[in-house]
């Protein structure tokens, strides 16, 4: 059961993990141009320092007996109104430390990469300031020991995401995308805030230990409500259907942002939220089922969109949406899936960050071109990028032995093991998704790196500088090895067990039936892609395409739906209300006044001098009235 231990030793400085990047962000954002020369170095040093601290804590934590692996570090008492204790405390346990290492580890690599990628941007130090702000907020999100601290981090990463998507906000498309991301996320935040309110009304607290120790006393309807509201929050942050529409637009941000925030870390916060709330979801079967449905729908939704995108970043973004769908599906399966969901989250952090950095490297080499129809044959001029991108590609499609194979197969297997119709449907969705993933990812690789070159004459692709390629190489190493480290012998599942509970299932055998079928689906996916994009030349202009292709290109009409159901009616409503306010509300009050005092007419034709005397006479009248009434009653 969950017991936390007071912090001592290295754990008493856990707050530094957050404070270092936060302080760096403050210096870089407020420092102005004075920090231009060394700003990027500070910006890289901060997450690295946090990473080292996180590593030390991780090593110490692993050395402790299992029951003592949850350490609480109380920082300060926040707003305390009677009965409303919102202490800010940091909790280091297996789940949070895994995230800390992902955020600071992969984060540091992407920071280093950005030194090269953003080298020519006049506001590079501001970029690093926002990036550090993001790291700090994300660390608060995963380290907070209560839902309010989580919510503060949750909104903090939303802010950083807003600032970074809109980093080039002189482009109207970037400014619009940033706003859209924030607003859609706010719909999710609505769910999260109401969930916290229900918790407070039900349990009188929002601390993890307080809530989780009391869940057995709450009725299932309340727990289901909390679960569904948390799911709404998760849908917003993790771009799950129905709040998925912002993620593709978010690719307007610089590519390192897409890699760190919109692939490796922030968008996985929804998965963290569900896994962290395991004690609630385990007692809320309806909410749990909804989580799996959202995951399954989104993994297909994203995969289908990914098949039709010609913009390399958007294809990868659709893939992110789909992969997070896998994770959400996994954590919706309960104790059988938590460890797999988080493990896939970690391996995905490596290979998807690697893919995005590879895409950035390609853009860097081709004058910021993103249209894959204008790539082709880039393997030759950019061998390192091709190699690292290729390894990450093999990892994501689940090539045997690479990290994605371990974690994705485990999820598919766990879904089938759920049993019943729902288990079959969910497992099959995940299986089909794996096939589609193999197809669209192969399409990206074939169109970008293989085939005939289709780039313009004035483009001279070249390999990126070392400061960019080294992070890509390290991420590729992670894409290969992370699966072994985490999954063999159920190592990670055992590590996480104190937080999310043990699975009754023994660890998954890689050679199960489902595993073999998944492998077949992957081969089919790659094969079809090879037929379509390797055997035949890729046209420089996208063909018209079938109905399905057009639908996928248009994000399966997600935006069209939002526009016609929310935006347009909303615009009409506000216009109607503005008219209503000016004519009806204002008119009615003026009209009533006119009925009694006849001043409406005068209001329209006021003369300045007249107004003054009128006002004074009114005030005088009040004074006389006071006097008179008091005389009478005195």
């Amino acid at each position, binding site marked *: 059961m969950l017991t936390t231990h007071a912090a001592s030793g290295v754990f008493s400085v856990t707050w530094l993990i957050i404070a270092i990047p936060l302080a760096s962000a403050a210096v870089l954002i407020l420092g102005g141009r004075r920090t231009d020369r060394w700003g990027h170095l500070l910006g890289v040093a901060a997450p690295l320092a946090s990473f080292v601290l996180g590593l030390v804590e991780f090593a110490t934590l692993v050395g402790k007996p299992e029951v003592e692996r949850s350490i609480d570090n109380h920082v300060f008492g926040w707003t305390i*109104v009677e009965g409303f204790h919102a202490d800010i405390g940091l909790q280091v346990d297996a789940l949070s430390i895994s995230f800390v290492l992902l955020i600071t580890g992969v984060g540091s690599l992407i920071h280093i990469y950005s030194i090269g990628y953003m080298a020519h941007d006049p506001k590079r130090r501001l970029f690093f300031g926002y990036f550090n702000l993001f790291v700090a907020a994300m660390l608060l999100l995963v380290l907070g020991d209560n839902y309010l601290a989580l919510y503060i981090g949750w909104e903090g990463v939303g802010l950083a995401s807003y600032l970074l998507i809109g980093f080039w906000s002189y482009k109207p498309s970037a400014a619009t995308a940033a706003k859209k991301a*924030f607003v859609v996320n706010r719909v999710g935040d609505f769910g999260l805030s*109401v969930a916290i309110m229900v918790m407070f009304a039900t349990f009188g607290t929002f601390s993890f230990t307080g809530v989780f120790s009391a869940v057995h006393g709450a009725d299932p309807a309340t727990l289901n409500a909390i679960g569904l509201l948390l799911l709404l929050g998760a849908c917003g942050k993790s771009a799950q259907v129905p709040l998925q529409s912002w993620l593709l637009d978010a690719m307007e941000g610089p590519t390192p942002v897409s890699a760190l925030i919109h692939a490796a870390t922030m968008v996985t916060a929804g998965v963290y939220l569900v896994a962290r709330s395991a004690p609630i979801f385990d007692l809320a079967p309806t909410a749990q089922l909804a989580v799996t449905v959202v995951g399954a729908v989104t993994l297909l939704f994203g995969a289908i969109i990914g098949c039709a995108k010609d913009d390399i970043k958007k294809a990868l973004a659709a893939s992110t949406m789909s992969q997070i769908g896998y994770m959400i599906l996994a954590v919706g399966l309960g104790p059988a899936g938590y460890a797999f969901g988080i493990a896939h989250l970690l391996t995905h952090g490596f290979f998807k960050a690697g893919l995005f950095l590879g895409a950035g490297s390609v853009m860097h080499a081709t004058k910021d071109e993103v249209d894959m129809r204008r790539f082709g044959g880039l393997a030759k001029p950019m061998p390192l990028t091709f190699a690292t991108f290729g390894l990450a590609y093999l990892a994501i499609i689940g090539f045997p032995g690479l990290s994605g194979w371990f974690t994705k197969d485990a999820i598919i297997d766990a879904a089938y093991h759920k049993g019943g119709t729902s288990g079959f449907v969910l497992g099959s969705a995940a299986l089909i998704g794996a096939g589609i993933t193999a197809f669209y990812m192969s399409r990206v690789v074939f169109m970008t790196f293989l085939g005939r070159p289709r780039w313009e004459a004035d483009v001279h692709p070249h390999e990126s500088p070392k400061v960019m390629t080294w992070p890509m190489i390290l991420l590729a190493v992670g894409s290969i090895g992370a699966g072994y480290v985490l999954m063999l012998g159920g190592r990670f599942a055992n590590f996480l067990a104190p937080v999310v509970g043990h699975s009754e299932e023994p660890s998954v055998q890689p050679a199960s039936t489902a595993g073999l079928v998944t492998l077949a689906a992957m081969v089919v996916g790659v094969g079809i892609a090879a037929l379509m994009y390797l055997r035949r030349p890729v046209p420089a202009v996208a063909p018209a395409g079938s109905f399905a292709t057009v639908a996928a290109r248009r994000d399966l009409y997600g935006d069209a739906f939002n526009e016609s159901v929310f935006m347009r009616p909303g615009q009409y409503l506000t216009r109607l209300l503005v008219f209503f306010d000016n004519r009806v509300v204002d008119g009615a009050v003026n009209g009533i006044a006119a009925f009694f005092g006849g001043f409406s007419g005068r209001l329209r034709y006021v003369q300045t001098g007249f107004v003054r005397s009128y006002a004074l006479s009114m005030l005088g009248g*009040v004074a006389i*009235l006071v006097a008179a009434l008091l005389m009478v009653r005195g």
Partner: protein
Amino acid sequence: MPWLTVLGVIPLVGTAVIAALPRERPVWAKWTALATTVVVLALTCVIAARFDVHGPRFQFTEDVSWIPAFGIHYALGVDGVAVVLLLLTAVLWPVVILASWHECEQTRRSVKTYLGLFVSMETVLIGTFVSTDLFLFYALFETMLIPMYFIIGSSGTPRASYAAMKFLLYSLAGGLLMLAAVIALYVVGPKSFLYSDLQNLHLPTADARWLFLGFFAAFAVKAPLWPLHTWLPDAVAEGPVGGSVLLVGVLDKVGTFGFLRYCLGLFPEAAHWFTPVVLVLAVIAVLYGALQAIGQRDLLRLMAYVSVSHFGLITLGVFAFTSQGQAGATLYMVNHGFSTGALLLIIGFLIARRGTRGIHDFGGVQQVAPILAGVFLLASLSGLALPGLNTFVSEFLVLVGTFTRYEVAAGFATAGIILASIYMLVMYQRTMTGPVRPHVEHVRDLSLRERVVIAPMVAVIVALGFYPGPILDIIKPGVAATLQQTHDTDPQPAVQPAAVAPSGGSS
């Protein structure tokens, strides 16, 4: 030392000095106004520091019989709620004077008249917050209209005169209803206007409800609550920006302060009886104000509707009858003053540069004036209640405090956070981002004076976001006293974590 009397008299002295200054030396009037309000600020800080949160509810009390024939006293005193509103007043006044440094030369009034109106109004506002005699409060409540009326109309355009007139007539109509209630209370009550004598009156139920309505009407116009709000957009848009900051920042708070101090404190049974209606109006105000704000094309009108929405939240918190709700509402009164005040001030800077307040006349300001855009974004984020900034603490307390008793109302009001992100970020996007629009390329970044104006606002927005503790400590006893008056205790959680034995479950 009669602290509160001294506090109230200082601006009067300042006004007298300004009046005596030669007309051809406007700078003297400016410095006198600034010095006066800074002294008030310093004294208010001393009072706040000396306020004993464990002491009696009302402190720094003074009580002199004024008109014995009618039992009218000159009685002053502050509770925690009044102290924080005094702090808000004391900070905003010098900030606005400094912000109006040039604006005050462009009205049809002389600089000294204009600034004299501002400074004298501070006395009246301090008076409304510190008076503990109902008659004194009423007199000051009405007096407040005079300087504000002239300030709104100071540009002299027909639209401004219309707006000023509208403000005056709405307020007078509300005030008259309150006057009737004050007199009626005197008639049925203990022939005293002292706040301490008017509590626990055991009035006949029907009487108390009518009296409640009289007070409520006046405060609902001032706050303003839907559907009595339509004077506010006109007043905010047509008046000078400095005046608008004080109007929505402080004057309107007298309405929500009045809800808490008088409507709840004097008529607890009636307040409970009317609560369903008030909650509905408050929720409508939250959502309606937000939707109106989204539909506006005028920066100042937009901010006025934002305020209507936020006043709805404050009202919601007051009428939730929970310590979180009311403490949150009081804190919100302070926070709204700073976040909306900061936004209005920056909009004022924009208007001064570009000569228009149409949202579509701006665009791309971020590129030519990055610091201005940066503080505008920060204030906007405060306005949409981003955690880490001041408004979040109060908004969350209000919503949580409301939810524990009125789930549905809180749920609807929480939807306002979505709309808030739309109106704030759309405003930011249209004015600050995108390509530089024509005539925007000459927009300068903030001058030194403007930075000095905005710095304290930004400091408070950030400081109260991270560490609202000291302010909440002052507010808490005042709110506790109100809840005692209304005989309310916080709802207890359905499941007590401590009561549940640690289950030996395996998960």
